[in-house]
């Protein structure tokens, strides 16, 4: 599909190009933003942030997009990816400037720190535990930390910005699935890597997206080019079987996990 904004951009009429671009894609932009927040103030703030980012450095992002233009390439996927990243940036930038995030202000002290480390700074859960222990709570046990972590996620999910925040950090595993300490978590990752070693990278990614990231099977099939969701389920079935047999070979039973 022809992109009418590219010609004026190439001839130096950037503002005309911008008007045409926004006219063409504003509905898509708003739709993408509304997936993360229904708050009218937030929607408009993020929209303004996206527009600023697209105009930045003399429309550098749009110029690069113009060089990639291809009548068969839908720009919508790229734009949704841009909106996703900029929404995350917007939140982290805004809350990173505050001493205590507005979302975290009502949380107990440990949960405030967890929020800052995981949601704002992007640390892993284990890193957040080590930071918390080394700076503020040397006696904190990993199990206690996991309870605080789960409580933090519950509070965040219940907040009015829960959808945006869900994009900033992966949900922790339920406590029964979580390793009892960070060293065991690292060991389990090594065990998993060995168990999945025989699968192709695509099959490993299918398992990761479906089981861990909880992506719908239809989307996994689309992204990986599988004909049907049946292929996704079969690969997941095989992968879970491979993990089970490695656990058995390693002498690990369900109750040991």
């Amino acid at each position, binding site marked *: 599909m022809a992109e009418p904004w590219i010609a004026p951009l190439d001839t130096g009429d950037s503002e005309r190009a911008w008007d045409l671009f926004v006219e063409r894609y*504003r*509905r898509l932009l708003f*739709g993408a933003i509304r*997936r993360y927040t*229904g708050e*009218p*103030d937030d*929607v*408009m*703030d993020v*929209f*303004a942030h996206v527009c*600023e980012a697209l105009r930045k450095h003399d429309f550098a992002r749009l110029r690069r*997009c113009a060089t*990639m233009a291809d009548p068969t*390439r839908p720009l*919508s*996927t*790229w734009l*949704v*990816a*841009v909106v*996703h*990243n900029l929404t995350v940036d917007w939140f982290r930038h805004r809350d990173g400037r505050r001493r205590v995030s507005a979302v975290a202000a009502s949380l107990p002290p440990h949960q405030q720190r967890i929020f800052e480390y995981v949601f704002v700074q*992007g640390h*892993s*859960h*284990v890193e957040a535990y080590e930071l918390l222990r080394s700076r503020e709570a040397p006696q904190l046990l990993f199990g206690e930390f996991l309870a605080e972590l789960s409580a933090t996620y519950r509070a965040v999910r219940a907040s009015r910005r829960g959808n945006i925040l869900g*994009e*900033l950090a*992966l949900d*922790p*595993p*339920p406590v029964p699935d*979580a390793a009892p300490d*960070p060293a065991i*978590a690292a060991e389990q990752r090594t065990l998993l890597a060995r168990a999945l070693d025989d699968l192709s*990278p695509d099959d490993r*990614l299918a398992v*990761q*997206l479906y*089981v*861990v*990231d909880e*992506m*719908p099977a239809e*989307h996994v099939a689309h*992204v990986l*080019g599988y004909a049907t969701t*049946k292929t996704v*389920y*079969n690969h*997941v*079935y*095989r992968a*879970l079987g491979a*993990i*089970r047999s490695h656990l058995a070979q390693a002498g690990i039973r*369900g109750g040991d*996990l």
Partner: protein
Amino acid sequence: MREFIIRSLHVTSPHPAPELLVPYALGAKDATTARHVAGCAICRTEIEEMQQAAGLLRGSVLLERRVETPECPDEFVLADFVDGRLSPEARAPVVAHLLTCARCRGVVTATSGFAADAAALSRGAGRRWRRWSLPLGLAAAAALVVLLLPRGADDGSSPGLREPTDTSVVAPLPIAPRGAVPRVDRLVWSSVPRVERYRLRLYTGDGDVLWTKETTDTSVTLPNSVVLSPQVTYFWKVEAQTEWKRWVASDLVEFRLGGPSR
């Protein structure tokens, strides 16, 4: 071929196939599979083992960071990956990166989800979807006026960018199920701005209410208590409460399990 091997190794009686067993083991509601599992010790054991393995996989989240690194592909590459436009040579390093990068998998998840929803909406929206154009156009125009004004110091003291009041009546749009479907686990519809809650009604072909549910979400999981029969037509609609005592209803949508649609 691979599916046949899997079935021949693990299935000696009509046990549910992986496409039923896997989602059920991971939490999907499926009354038929649940009935089988309740009476089948082999499947119960298998599900328990699958859940342990999935728990181990999910436990690895504790070590994942969700931040951008210099190795992260840019948005064009990730978009081309989602759209299946990368050559095998370009695709392989992206897959390898995604296996280790939760941040980029988040982009892929968000992008593919939007693409799927957009496709579903464009297939079923018709005239109702176009009702969005007026408020969204006004909102974009209002934002652009502010963006095009001289900026000066960006101290946050300027008048806020605010969406104009939405005075249009936007009804929710039933997305799935519609027409002939292999099974129904959830009912999904489009969101309505500033809605307080949704009310879903499921009807038999004779017009009797089979099930009703209120929620603030845009989907509901069908409970095990609602058993749908194959080759039988059902209807559903969803109403959105936009103000006190004010509800906006979707069209009535028809679906049936299996077989060609009417």
